[in-house]
Structure formats: structure tokens, C-alpha cells
């Protein structure tokens, strides 16, 4: 009971910090210097990159949960994978909307079929396939989806390194390490905020999965009781 109370307090504190972050981070972004080539539109970077990292992180967590489900039969791992897979789709959508908005202004086009953009879209589609397989895959849907999560995890390094391997219009992986010192506070504050939001969403979504598992158990109990005492 005390543990539940501590967890509840920790969750409430995280939500409070996230709300404070929503007020502070936009101010840091506005006060960050304007990039000389792209101008103001470069400020999309401060949210676009953390969202992309959260998409990658969600995919890795979904793959780890799926591995434990496939090889150890861990239902909790499957529930974690489901929660993370959904977050992967959410943050993937954020990346695939904010990116073209940035590209339209910076490159003059909404979309380019280059390696980074195409592999990111592929990752987003695999994660959607994961959720669809779970929902409509029938009795084998969970295992099929778990296999898809592993494929999605294999795509992540490809997405990340694509800008170094192939010639693309997308900025390279050296952008964040070589960021101007005046831009770093805005980027890392935004990164911390998005990571915190990701953690809150994962906790919330995992609670839903746990509650659904409880419903299934109770449903089985009531069915058994109804059979024993018709």
C-alpha cells in the first residue's frame, strides 16, 4: 500500500515537472539563436529530434518486451511491448508531420524519397503493422506482432545511420554533437521534457494494459463461478 502511494506520488511529481517544462521549454526555444542558413524554421529541430529519439526508444522497448514474451512467455513483457508500440506510432506521427513542415520551408518540398525519410516512414509503417497484427491477427496475433517488433528494432540503426551511408538532403548525425553552445540549453531541456512525457505516457499506458489483464482474469473467474452455480 505504501509502495502504491509512493508510486502515485512519483507519478504526480513527474506530471507536475512536465507541466512546468511546458512553460519553460518554449521560452528557451524562443530565446535560442536563429540558425543563419535556415532561419526561424530550424527551431522545429528542438522538438523534431527528441520525438525521433522517442520513436527509436519506443521501438527498442517494444522489441525487448516482445523478446521476453517470445522466448520466456512473459505476459508482462507483451503488455510493455504493446504500450511502447503505441507510443512508437504516436511519436512517429509527430516526426513525420514536423519533418515535412520543416522540409517545406528549408528544402522547398514537403517530402523527398531519400534514405532517412523513407526508412523513417518504413519504421512508422512497421509499428502500425505491429498494432494491426495485435488487433486483427487472431489467436496468433500476439506472436506475429512480437516478430514485427523485432523487425522494427532492426530498422532503427538503419534509420539512424542512413544519413551517413547514403547521400541525402536530411542533416547528418553530427548536428547534435556539434550544436552551437547557445543552442544546447534549449535542445537538452526539450529533450528532457519529451523524455519525461514519454515516461509518463508509458506508465499510463502500461497501467491500462495491467488493468485490462485484471479484467480478463476477473472475467474468467466470473465465468467459472457461473458454470459452478448456474
Amino acid at each position: 500500500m505504501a509502495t502504491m502511494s509512493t508510486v502515485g506520488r512519483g507519478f504526480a511529481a513527474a506530471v507536475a515537472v512536465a507541466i512546468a517544462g511546458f512553460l519553460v521549454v518554449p521560452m528557451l526555444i524562443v530565446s535560442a539563436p536563429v540558425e543563419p542558413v535556415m532561419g526561424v524554421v530550424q527551431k522545429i529541430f528542438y522538438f523534431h529530434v527528441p520525438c525521433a529519439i522517442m520513436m527509436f526508444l519506443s521501438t527498442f522497448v517494444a522489441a525487448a518486451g516482445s523478446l521476453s514474451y517470445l522466448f520466456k512467455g512473459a505476459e508482462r513483457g507483451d503488455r510493455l511491448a504493446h504500450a511502447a508500440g503505441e507510443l512508437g506510432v504516436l511519436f512517429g506521427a509527430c516526426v513525420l508531420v514536423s519533418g515535412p513542415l520543416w522540409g517545406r520551408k528549408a528544402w522547398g518540398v514537403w517530402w523527398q524519397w531519400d534514405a532517412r525519410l523513407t526508412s523513417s516512414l518504413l519504421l512508422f509503417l512497421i509499428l502500425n503493422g505491429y498494432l494491426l497484427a495485435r488487433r486483427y491477427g487472431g489467436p496468433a496475433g500476439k506472436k506475429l506482432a512480437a516478430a514485427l517488433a523485432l523487425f522494427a528494432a532492426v530498422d532503427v540503426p538503419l534509420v539512424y545511420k542512413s544519413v551517413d551511408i547514403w547521400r541525402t538532403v536530411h542533416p547528418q548525425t553530427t548536428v547534435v554533437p556539434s550544436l552551437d553552445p547557445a543552442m544546447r540549453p534549449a535542445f537538452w531541456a526539450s529533450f528532457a521534457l519529451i523524455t519525461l512525457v514519454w515516461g509518463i505516457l508509458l506508465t499510463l499506458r502500461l497501467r491500462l494494459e495491467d488493468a485490462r489483464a485484471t479484467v480478463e482474469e476477473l472475467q474468467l473467474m466470473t465465468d467459472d463461478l457461473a458454470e459452478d452455480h448456474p
Partner: protein
Amino acid sequence: MRYRFARVVPVLAALAMLLGSTAAFAQEYVKVDNVPREQLPAPQFVGAAYGFIWVAILVYVIVVARRLAKTRGDIDELRRRVDSATGTKR
């Protein structure tokens, strides 16, 4: 009547040629000076990107919270049924 028609036809033919050549010109790249460069308003793009991200997260939180509330309601209902069934058994 035939005389009028004979006068109109060359005029129409000349007009068609002129329009045709204009259309042909439109297919080519022609250098034009002093045309203002297309300017897209950057703050609107930044605002749209941020707006989408935060609205998507907010909508997701609302959807998950509603699903969680419904599932917890189902748990309470099922627990009541189990309790009443085991109470009958006793």
C-alpha cells in the same frame, strides 16, 4: 456570307497560331528578372509543428485516461459480481 467567312478564317487561323506559340513558350524555361523570391512564413511552420505534437500528445492522454477509467469501472463491476457469487457460495 461566303465573303465574310473567307475573311474570318485567316484571322482565326492567325489567332490560333499566336495562342499556340504562347502555349509553346509556356513549356520552356525563360529567364525573368526582378521576380520576388517565394517567401514562406517560418513562424507558421514552427507553430504548426509544435501545435501538432502537443495536440497529438494531449489527445492521446485523454484517450488513454478515458480507456483506463472505463477499464477500472469494469474491474469494480466484475469484483462486485465475484464477491456476490462467492457470498452466495458461502
